[in-house]
């Protein structure tokens, strides 16, 4: 059984149809990358999978681990193992970073009938993973993302992912705004989590990230649909030639 199975997904935002019949299957252990022009619907797909209520699904079916994902609330999807690293992580003044992650972990543990972690169990683990991501200790008690630099916000998303250990991690342009060192660190964090039980959906515009996180499949999303799929080499080709249809797909102009 596939981990994620999307069939003929249509979704709209504020009355505009953005996803127009999207199909995608992801198996556990795989890394998929989605590329595509601005506004093509990549973040919309991510939001629908994370069950954001302002995105309305009008048609189609999504199964996650055999369960109907579209029936789930955001918190249920998260507890089932869906994680979204946001393109634009929101700042939440007044809620401590570590406190937030511990609350999230405990919510998920509770869902699975596990005991809650207290601060003593949690903190060493949290700090250890922070160290891997080369994050400053002082971010522990700062409010969630408040006053974080762009790079710190993105690393904070990966840190949360590392703590929550999802089955499917969707990374929405986690690479944008990162300098090359930060990119390497983030990729290291992601690669450390690759494994047979976990899948990744990596949304990006750049081959740069895929040099570090090698995908098994690359898909091109244009105007709400996947128009092409291929292996890692497709990303290189896209970087070279843009998102237009491949030459093979374009009818050859007739010789004069």
């Amino acid at each position, binding site marked *: 059984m596939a981990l994620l199975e999307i069939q003929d997904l249509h979704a709209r935002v504020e009355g505009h149809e953005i996803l127009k019949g999207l199909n995608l299957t992801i198996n556990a252990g795989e890394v998929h990358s989605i590329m595509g022009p601005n506004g093509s619907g990549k973040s919309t797909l991510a939001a629908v999978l994370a069950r954001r209520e302002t995105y309305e699904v009008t048609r189609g079916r999504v199964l996650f681990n055999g369960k109907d994902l579209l029936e789930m609330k955001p918190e249920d999807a998260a507890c089932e193992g869906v994680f979204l690293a946001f393109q634009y992580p929101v700042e939440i003044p007044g*809620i401590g970073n570590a406190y937030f*992650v511990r609350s999230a972990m405990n919510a998920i543990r509770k869902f699975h009938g596990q005991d809650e972690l207290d601060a003593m169990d949690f903190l060493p683990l949290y700090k250890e993973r922070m160290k891997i991501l080369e994050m400053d200790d002082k971010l522990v008690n700062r409010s969630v993302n408040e006053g974080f630099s762009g790079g710190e916000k993105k690393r904070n998303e990966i840190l949360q992912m590392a703590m929550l250990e999802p089955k499917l991690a969707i990374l929405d342009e986690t690479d944008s705004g990162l300098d090359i060192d930060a990119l390497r660190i983030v990729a290291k964090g992601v690669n450390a989590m690759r494994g047979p039980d976990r899948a990744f959906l990596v949304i990006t515009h750049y081959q740069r990230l895929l040099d570090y996180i090698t995908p098994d499949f690359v898909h091109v999303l244009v105007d709400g649909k996947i128009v092409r799929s291929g292996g890692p080499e497709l990303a290189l080709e896209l970087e070279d030639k843009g998102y237009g249809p491949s030459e093979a797909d374009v009818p050859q102009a007739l010789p004069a």
Partner: protein
Amino acid sequence: MSTTANNTENENATATGKLGTYLEAYGELIAERQERDPVWLRQLREDAWRRFYANGFPTTHDEDWRFTNLAALAKTSFQRAVKGSGTVTAEQIEGFRVLGAGCRLVFVNGHFAPELSDVCDLPNTLEICSLERGIAKAMEGSASNGSAPVGCAPEGIEQHLGRYADLRRDVFTALNTALWDDGAYLRIHRGAVIERPIHLLYVSAGAGAAIMTHPRTLIVAEPTSHSAVIEDYVSIGDETAFSNAVTELVAGQDAVVSHFLVERENLAAFNVSTLRLELARGTNVSSHSILLGGGLVRNNVHPVLNGEGAECLINGLFVGAGRQHLDNYMLVEHAQPLCSSRQFYNGILDDRARGVFHGRIVVHKDAQKTDAKQTNRNLLLSDDARIDTKPQLEIYADDVKCTHGATIGQIEEEQLFYLRSRGIEETSARNLLLYAFAAECLDRMPESPAREFVAELIRVRLTDLAQNHQVAVLAAPVEEETQHWEEVR
């Protein structure tokens, strides 16, 4: 013509009719206190009574009461609670205890309840007693010409009581001054550092009729002393009551004082609290108002910065649901140069609750280099909730810095989604966001048992609110209110 005359007569008749129960209460009280009140106090009461009786309760035509309609208060006939009305046991008030408090005075329906109070372990640098006892002792003292009794040296009472709270400006202060039965008297000696907060618990306990109390508190913080006082209003049972409290807090040079007002009465309660702060040179005084309960609440905070370099923090949180009406009226007077005042009020309103923040700053002629700041932030959780916020500046000096800002917003869908996307269930997520907003107010309090105490009250209140609130929120950006200072000349 005759009809008009009749109408006028009728109106007058009903107006005095409405004040009739107050007149009765006043007559009763004066008769009771014939022997007990010293002459100066009798005069003060009489003057206050005249003020109140001549004016009656304000209407919404009065600019200071524009957003708060007192009709329901005015038409209820409240009885003065006689001593011993409403029996309260120690168990009943056990739940109101403040952990870590140094001592506690308990008042039941406006009367001191020594058997419920707890004043052991007092440092000898702190005098605390009921105001009535203090005055009684002062009377004995002057009669026998002996020294003041142990526990309370009440010579400060005459010097300070009624000197600051302005009964000419405010009829509720006048009413309180005329009708108070009892309250607390505190004197913190020069240089004393009182580590643990002093808890003043004012309990309204149903006595079979709508009762009124007029608690009066006098706090004299002598120079360079440090102290914290919690004034706490609670009710037992769900009967309606009217608490009209006045507190005068006098801070001597370089004194540091924190005052906490906690309003957690039942939803049928009317509560008018007036806190008058007098700040001498170099003082650092903070007022923290936590309004969680009460049906109709008016919270008046009136600091006068009356010595160079005085600093005043006016911090507050009001949380309303149902049909609660929570009105905050700030009057910050800068009377001397180089003082700074900071007003921060956060409001959370759900259902049909209504909040008011009226922040008035007066900078007197001599108060050069005044630095005054005012911020009011509000979260509205329902379409029917409402906040009226009104900044007002009255300025007679030329070298001053005054800023103000007000925001009105809703819980942000983006933040709520972020929390939920990590597995946190909607109610908890909402609760976390509410608490984060309220925590801005807690962060402005020094770490202390008083802060722990109010933090817990807030946590419980917000959990209730998050649970009751099942209406879906729509994406709603925080809108900056473009309200300008109203200039008063």
